[in-house]
């Protein structure tokens, strides 16, 4: 769902020859900037989550509450951001008729603030 979006290198390889490149090209061409920006944030969250999980498995899970707080903050933020993405996607307009993009962002911001409140309480 979240292909690489950080770079937009122009490729000279023929799109028809490689499905992955074709997908990448069509993503770059057809996705609005706003959604690509959200995707970039999702990738960032996923990477920080993976780093923490690997650190927990390979180095230490002590103190465990800090791991839970750090890891769940990335997971929770990822879920909230993914929800925002589906709600503001113009293609999903019919499914979220009563949710305007502004309302979706307000929900996202409120949920995130609550999430970070709990995360920092649990982190210490």
């Amino acid at each position, binding site marked *: 769902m979240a292909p690489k979006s950080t770079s937009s290198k122009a490729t000279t390889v023929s799109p028809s020859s490689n499905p992955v490149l074709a997908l990448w090209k069509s993503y770059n061409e057809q996705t609005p900037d706003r959604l690509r920006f959200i995707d970039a944030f999702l990738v960032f*969250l996923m990477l920080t989550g993976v780093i923490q999980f690997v650190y927990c498995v390979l180095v230490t899970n002590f103190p465990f509450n800090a791991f839970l707080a750090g890891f769940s*903050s990335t997971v929770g933020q990822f879920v909230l951001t993914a929800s925002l993405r589906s709600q503001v996607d113009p293609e999903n307009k019919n499914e979220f008729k009563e949710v305007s993009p502004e309302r979706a962002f307000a929900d996202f911001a409120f949920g995130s603030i609550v999430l970070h409140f709990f995360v920092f309480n649990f982190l210490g």
Partner: protein
Amino acid sequence: MLPLLSLLISLVTLVVARSSTGTDVLVIVSAEEQKDYTLFFEDLEGRGYDLFFREPKAEKPVLLDADVPQFHHVLMLASDTKAFASDITPQNIVELLTKNVNVVVALSPKQNLFYTLAPEFGLVPPPPGTPLISYFPERTDPPTVLPVHVAPGPIVTPNTPPVWFSGIPFSVGNSPLLVPILNAPSESFASDSDSTTESIVESVEKGGEGLWAGSSLGLVTGFQVTDGGRALFLGGGAILSDAFANKALPDGSSSGNKQIAHDVSAWAFQESLVLRIDETSHHVVNATEPKEYYTTNDQVVYTTKISRWNAKENEWEPHTGVDDLQLEFTMLDPHVRTGIPEDLARPGTYSVTFRAPDRHGVFKFIVDYRRKGWTHLKSAITVPVVPPRHDGYPRFLSAAWPYYAGAVSTSVGFVLFAALYLAGETKEAGKKKKE
């Protein structure tokens, strides 16, 4: 006059109270037998004891008045007496022992109430009328009067010469409270002195079964009551008598009876091998006051001070040199069991530092020191061990920095994302308006 009086008082205090419990001794002995023990009684009086004599059948002075012991020590030398006054019963003697009164009991081949008392302490006497007999070494005395080699032990003075003995042996049970002091010679046996050969032949036919013989039989055995009282059982009162104290051994040298009478009475009357715990304290490292409760993994310091009674100086002195003292920190089971080494800077003080277990609950510091012959030491202090308070845990550990960084970066990312998102929205709105 006054200096003379004070001198008299100091002289009295010098002599009096050599025992750690008291000086009053009740001697239950018949008038005829009393004459046999003058040397022993002189020795006792010389050590500051006040002797009170009572005929076995006399009603006074009583052992217990309204359950209060009237004497510090009781000496039962009336071994040949069959009937005693109404208050001299096995039950009362046990009662005395539980009240920290020391009791010395002399048994004899004639059956009396002590024959039922001794088995209560794990000492089983042979059938009545069967004294200890030995035909070795060769001597002119009757076979029932025999010299016994004194094995070294904590109670008797080292190198005590052999002692004369006449009386009965008893089999010594396996109670850990029993303290064997003098055992029978290995070639001796208990038998009816009129028919020794017959009984030996009979028991040889049975493979030795039923023969009271050998060095595992006790002649003088102590019993350390858990509360501190001491009981001493003698196979015969004669071992304390003048006759045996003055009687020369078969090789002509003098016997050790006087010495052993002194030693065993010193032990029985709590002069020697008496210990006590003066004080115990506990606190966390780098503190002085005990804490009301300890936290798991605290470093706890436990200190105890042990004193030994010095009968010569008539005072308690620090007891040094114990290298096998143990402390247990228990909650049902000992979670920590560690030796308590001596604190060499403070004599008689034993101290140990240990980490409280990572387990909360109600714990006890237990010192339980029992060695044969010595007074038992027992101390138990109950302390709760609690988990750390909610703010008592370590914080901002270096190991957790990746997690902190992860949480902070998510928050910062959220703020930046929200700002850029809103900025993009106004841009788009502007674009739309322009269009």
